């Protein structure tokens, strides 16, 4: 049998769990605050029409929203923060495993990070990924 990989003991893994919990919680709180501010601004400056529910942000380089760019800016920022959370979580895991001398798990998590990065890059390069 191959020797177990890794050097992080139970205490180190518990600390990693707490670190990841913190990363996730911070991301969630920031995102929720931004989303609530955005909705509050829309509530104050409203009204909104039913069509606005389906108004999309066109992607990089496009304007922020119909008539209320500040509010939509907050909403979009909240959404982007949410989307960054998994990336941050995997990046922190990868770093922690590498710092702890666990090469195998560091490579494993780095691979996942690369796949996520490729997904993002591919959406620019391969318009065929999502049929309109």
């Amino acid at each position, binding site marked *: 049998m191959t020797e*177990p990989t890794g050097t992080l003991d139970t205490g180190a893994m518990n600390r990693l*769990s707490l670190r990841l*919990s913190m990363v*996730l919680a911070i991301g969630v709180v920031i995102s929720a605050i931004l989303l609530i501010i955005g909705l509050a601004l829309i509530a104050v400056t409203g009204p909104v029409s039913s069509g606005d529910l389906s108004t999309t*942000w066109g992607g990089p380089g496009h304007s922020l929203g119909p008539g209320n760019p500040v509010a939509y800016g907050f909403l*979009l920022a909240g959404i982007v923060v949410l*989307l960054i959370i998994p990336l941050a979580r995997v990046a922190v895991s990868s770093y922690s495993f590498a710092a702890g001398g666990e090469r195998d798990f560091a490579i494993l998590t780095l691979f996942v990070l690369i796949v996520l990065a490729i997904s993002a890059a591919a959406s620019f390069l391969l318009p065929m990924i999502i*049929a309109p």
Partner: protein
Amino acid sequence: MLIPLWETFAGILALAFAAGLLGAMLGLGGGLIIVPGLVILFGIDVHLAIAASLVSIIANSAGSASRYARQGQINLRLGMFLEIATAAGGVAGAVLTTTVLTGATGTSILLISFAPITLAAAILLRRNIGKHVAQTAVKDPLAERWRLSGSFRDNVTGETVQYQVLQPKKGLLASLGAGLISGLIGIGGGIFKVPAMNVFMKVPMKVASATSSLMIGVTAGGGALIYLFRGYIAPLLVAPVAIGALAGSFTGTLVHGRSSSDTLKMLFVMVLIAAAIIMALKAVGVLATA
């Protein structure tokens, strides 16, 4: 029509809350509730609904996994070990939809084939109710090499439970399938990962669902980024969906902590049967699909 949409917002919040609640309890993303719910109840375009669902899965995952990680309910090594198959499956799903399985027919074929697998998972998990983690001397060499086994504290019984992870290859295969279907129809894939971890890998139900909660964020993350950059994110729709999912996930983690493993398994079996029906309805075109 120019109306304040707060009634609609309240409805969307309630839908996302329900998905987040159930999702956090069982390690699911809730996409199977959000997507049909938004399309059927609120008349949202299916692509926008899938994009909103993917963001809500991330919200649900981050909200619930934050608490589960703090409580030591997540098997981090196992989650990261399986994540590689999920990520690869997600890419394969995206490639398949754009090459071999293009159009509605291809998706229908896949959904038709996944429905019986989902039912089979329900039967296997149902048989597992009442069976608890056995202290076994049998050790899997691959699981040992990657140090996948672990322990957790069951809040209901107050006991610290040690468990051996078995058959990691089957877990990898199931995670690959979960990633595949996730890339195809915009769900987190927990419906396959959790039964596979519990039935094949002998991971306690609570650890399986908590570990899946962590993983689904990454599964949905790749897809969500694609939808963002391709311009399918509707901020005014996604905001209440994300907030509802977050609130639901916080509540779901509280219920998870107070529920027995068998209660969670029974609930999961019911969700699997409902999921099989939804997939079959999508396959024959009764429900909207991507």
